[in-house]
């Protein structure tokens, strides 16, 4: 039955050649396990998307409710603890993997011509990941989140000339409060995912177009 229904769909959409074009391609002999870091980073991103979308169904981004809704999600909703920790650990892992991936590219010299643009996009993706981590840290709205964000904003404030503007922009005003939480939330769940997915599309298609760099 399964085979028949796939046939039915295939007759109408003809997706097999497309899938073959995307998935079936020769991998060069010099590919090693070290080349997995990029793919693994993407894998953690997928887990973050799934668990993050689920938590968005339960999270309330306001100062009076954020902490309570997170606690309630963990203690009352089935698998809440697992899902939230999966999100947390995937986030930590993603940051580590992104750096390992960058290190591999650096050591192999894979950033050289003609791949410079993909290196630049990769750096944008790295920064996006770090902003993801920074904004996500505030959302549980507990003491650690509050003070860590306070420190983060103070670091931004120490930028020469632009410092106080940056801090005010991040805080959404003079106090760390409702608007801070809301803009971190909006960045974390709306703006950054768009940037990251856009960057990934470019990154992946360039890898496919240019192939994997020969090691030195």
């Amino acid at each position, binding site marked *: 039955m399964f085979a028949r229904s796939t046939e039915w769909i295939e007759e109408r959409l003809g997706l097999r050649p497309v899938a073959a074009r995307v998935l079936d391609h020769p991998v060069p*002999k010099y590919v090693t*396990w070290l080349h997995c870091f990029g793919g693994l980073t993407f894998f953690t991103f997928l*887990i973050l998307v*799934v*668990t993050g979308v*689920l938590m968005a*169904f*339960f999270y*309330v981004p306001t100062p009076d*409710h954020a902490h*309570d*809704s997170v*606690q*309630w*999600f963990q203690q*009352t*909703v*089935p*698998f*809440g603890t*697992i*899902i939230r920790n*999966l999100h947390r650990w995937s986030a930590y892992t993603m940051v580590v993997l992104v750096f390992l991936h960058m290190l591999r590219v650096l050591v192999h010299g894979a950033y050289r011509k003609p791949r410079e643009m993909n290196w630049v996009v990769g750096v944008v993706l790295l920064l996006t990941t770090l902003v993801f981590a920074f904004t996500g840290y505030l959302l549980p709205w507990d003491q650690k989140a509050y003070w860590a964000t306070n420190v983060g904003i103070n670091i931004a404030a120490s930028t020469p000339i632009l410092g106080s503007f940056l801090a005010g922009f991040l805080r959404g005003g003079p106090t760390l409060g409702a608007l801070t939480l809301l803009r971190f939330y909006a960045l974390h769940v709306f703006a950054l995912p768009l940037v990251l997915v856009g960057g990934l599309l470019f990154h992946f298609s360039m890898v496919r177009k240019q192939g994997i760099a020969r090691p030195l």
Partner: protein
Amino acid sequence: MRFLGKLLRRGAYQPTLPGLQVPRRAHRAAGDKGDGARGGRPGLRLVTESISRRTFLSGTLAWITAAIVSAVGAPVATALIWPAFQKSKGDWSPVARLDNPGPNQADLSAVDKPILTHFTALVQDAYLEAAPQNMPVFVVNHGKGQFTIFDVRCTHLGCPVNWDQKTKKFYSPCHDGVFDSEGRVLAGPPPRPLDRYEFKVEKGVLYAGKLFKVDDSLRRVTS
């Protein structure tokens, strides 16, 4: 790791799946369980069937993918549908003092006349233990401590009904649903009489309890 690396690199690697097959003419001697435990007896023959490396790898990949998807998907799906199974635990909420109503309370002394009022129920709203919710109701005092508390929401699609004192009927403003003074459907699309709240009177105060449905002969149908 080394094993997989070999699989990926070597061109002509052909893994085989062993399978047990009983030859046609083999028959069991008495006492032989057919497990081949008795030495040397050729009851069972090992045959092998080879599959291509590509099939083996893509099959393995598909199973691993399925395992990961279900490991992440099952908890996520469970958490997502869980709220649909939560029931509200109805508690008693005060509606009005009967003899000497407070400033924001309805005067329920008129007998057999539906009075539009509301009470505040403290409901569990997700992480809020006691979220105040406004419950508009029609209260009918039948005298002798007997009351009916109607939910104002029409049983068709939930528009708040109005009471008309001249015709002594409830009218739904949305699709011409009409109910009599006891909540029975007289006309229009509503599928059942008006829903009611349990009531009790304690120390001169009228309380509303759980919401319940009634059938056409006004018997309670939901707990």
